[in-house]
């Protein structure tokens, strides 16, 4: 396949950035999207150009490090897929592909397609945990959990923290990310003692980072590689209201 790529290039946080066009030839349909960029980058290095910087690590769809907006869609049009798991067979020969970084004020661009997502870590720091120091835990079977609750908690806990939800949201909201963690811990008995304070602290931190509010557009769950359900946000709002009612 032969492709035309339009890629966002930005040399650093203070640079304005621009779209740059590249032609790539002989792309195999079996390549992953990132392997296609690897091939282009090898060429750019040999030509003495600066290769395109992008984040990636496990390339198995689980670490959450990769992420780019491909033809206007976070992680591309293939549903429930991270960028690293997207393969070139889903594109037409001769196509033009536009590649941009996550765009949201709390995710400043570091370089090219690399953004700073440390705001997510700070939301977890605010309360995304159960306070249980190592060595203090009772026997695991002393806390039975209904299978349905465990399964629902798991569905929320599969969030990989990639940030696609923020990139897709017209408000730049981090509600799905925050709600996934709140829901995971709210559904389990272990999460109850800190349930209300956790919701308040995490939502307040999310707001302090400059993420927008949720208006239920559902773009987040549509692009989420793990399909985190939208109703986690209802759970978050419910816990948050309880905190403010007190």
């Amino acid at each position, binding site marked *: 396949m032969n492709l035309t790529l339009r890629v966002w290039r930005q*040399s650093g946080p203070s640079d304005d950035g621009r779209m740059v066009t590249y032609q790539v030839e002989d792309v*195999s349909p079996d390549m992953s999207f990132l392997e296609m960029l690897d091939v282009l980058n090898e060429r750019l290095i040999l030509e003495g150009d600066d290769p395109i910087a992008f984040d990636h690590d*496990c390339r198995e769809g689980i*670490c959450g490090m990769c992420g780019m907006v491909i033809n206007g869609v976070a992680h591309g049009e293939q549903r429930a897929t991270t960028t690293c798991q997207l393969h070139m067979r889903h594109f037409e020969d001769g196509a033009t592909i536009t590649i941009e970084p996550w765009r949201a004020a709390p995710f400043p661009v570091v370089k090219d397609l690399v953004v700073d997502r440390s705001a997510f870590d700070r939301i977890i720091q605010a309360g995304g945990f159960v306070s249980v120091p190592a060595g203090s*835990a009772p026997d695991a079977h002393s*806390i039975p959990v209904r299978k349905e609750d465990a399964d629902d908690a798991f569905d929320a806990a599969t969030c990989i923290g990639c940030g696609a939800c923020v990139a897709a949201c017209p408000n730049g909201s981090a509600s799905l990310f925050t709600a996934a963690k709140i829901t995971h811990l709210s559904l389990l008995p272990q999460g109850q003692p800190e349930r209300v304070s956790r919701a308040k602290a995490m939502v307040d931190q999310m707001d302090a980072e400059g993420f927008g509010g949720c208006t239920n557009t559902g773009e987040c769950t549509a692009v989420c590689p793990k399909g985190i359900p939208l109703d986690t946000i209802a759970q978050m709002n419910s816990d948050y209201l309880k905190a403010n009612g007190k």
Partner: protein
Amino acid sequence: MNHTQGPDIRDTKAPSGPIEERWEKRKFSARLVNPANKRKLHVIVVGTGLAGGSAAATLGELGYNVTSFCYQDSPRRAHSIAAQGGINAAKNYRGDGDSIHRLFYDTVKGGDFRARESNVYRLAQVSVNIIDQAVAQGVPFAREYGGLLDTRSFGGAQVSRTFYARGQTGQQLLLGAYQALERQVAAGTVTMHTRHEMLDLIVSDGRARGVIVRDMVTGEIERHVADAVVLATGGYGNVFFLSTNAKGCNTTAIWRAHERGAYFANPCYTQIHPTCIPVSGEYQSKLTLMSESLRNDGRVWVPLRKNDSRAPGDIPEQERDYYLERIYPAFGNLVPRDIASRAAKNVCDEGRGVGPGGLGVYLDFRDAIGRLGRDAVEKKYGNLFEMYERITGENPYDVPMRIYPAVHYTMGGLWVDYDLQSTIPGLFVIGEANFSDHGANRLGASALMQGLADGYFVLPTTIGDYLADGPYGDVDEEAVAEAEVKVRDKIERLLSVNGTRTPDSFHRELGKLMWDYCGMERTEESLRKALERIPELREEFWRDIKVTGTAEKLNQVLEKAGRVADFFDLAELMCLDALVRTESCGGHFRAESQDSDGEALRDDERFAHVSAWERTPGGPVLHKEPLEYEYVKMTQRSYK
């Protein structure tokens, strides 16, 4: 590459007495630090996977002053996250005869009698606490309808002791450790530096006292000093270029520590996983593991004829070779990882491999679908089939899967004593980065167990004994400056060559060479060839490498080049270690040492020891740590 032999290692610091009591004894003998003094003691932890994340969190909880580093943009992304299967623990919740002693026994046997008994016993003891800790953190393990934890059985064990969270056990355990870590960041006990890469160890007055790191965003070279340093930087499987490791996994942290005096143990012990998705072309950047559980229902075969280019569906039954069932009638498709891997390589070497380049074998579910129905197969393996189709574009319900072995885990690593301290006082090494516990072969679901045992329970106790003598006072300024200059010089050198080849092109070539000569099967001839070729390639690297950009900002080419440079040196030591160990054991198969059935043949007379390598200006020096088995009788494995 010549080497000399140094004195044996006789004292591993394991307490004496009955094996069940050794860890209790050590916990009591380890000195405590007054809570008021802990804040004055500074510990650096490099790496935030299961081992590093849990260690940094726990040390923070104890009140130490911790600084943590990772190369990713968040500590939540370390490669422990990709572990699928589960975590072993001797809970005996099933009442199926499991016990601490049985987990200990299985691990020593699975490691082909090349692990230290005292360490393995402790691992089995601590395993039960890990499950308690993870559940209390809210890790959503699989549960049964009664609300209790579900378990499953895994390779190499006859009991059901593997706890799991669907196919994402590593992710869920890592997020538990990550959340505990972030809680300590918020509490102010841990200072976190993401996108930082360790480039050297600071050794002052014979003690590990800090690290030189590079801020990967600004390019700034920073010095961080402390009273002790913990390396939790994972394995070195990426020396093969293609592996199931994350792209960023590298050997630099442990290799630089090795250059500073830490012994490197059993570098040749690598684990090759039999069920990975095969390479599809030259551009391939990594390999993806498919859960081993597929071998429960899939049948492995290749065409009987060489170079048979027919579609699998056109090959009649009598022209197929179900070679695992043929060679190993008792275990069939369920032989251990190393045996299944080698058998696949053999049939491909005979020219009977399938798919691009003939490097693949079929894993066929046709009979299982016929027997159980498509729905039942989909229920069991649906997510794996989907993953396979996503990557290959082929539907495994209609066409057999193609699989091939891939490098997956490295049992070798920096040598540590019972306290997990390396040969440099004050340098502790945990998780896959050390060599302990798994011997020559790791059992499935044991990597998560070891990482968390080290980080939550073992290290926080043993490092206290070392820190009880601290604070260690000022660091020798010259030692810090020397380390920093060394780092800067290396970066400068990489940038100044301006040759014609990219870091990846060298890495690919080195990886292929290692796979061909020091991979699944090693011979004296292949290893000597590798030892001849590696220095030539390294010389070419330093003459012809091309690194674009500058050191003062984010530069992924520079990062990669530095890592590849260290892989060359490590590769050489791996081949030397493999050459010297003329026996076969676990993941190390020397073709010269096999029994009449073609199985790995150990030589306990000559090789019942750990090979710990010291790096000196005069070349590598081999120290042997003799292994003694008081509790498990050494036997030869058989799976026929």
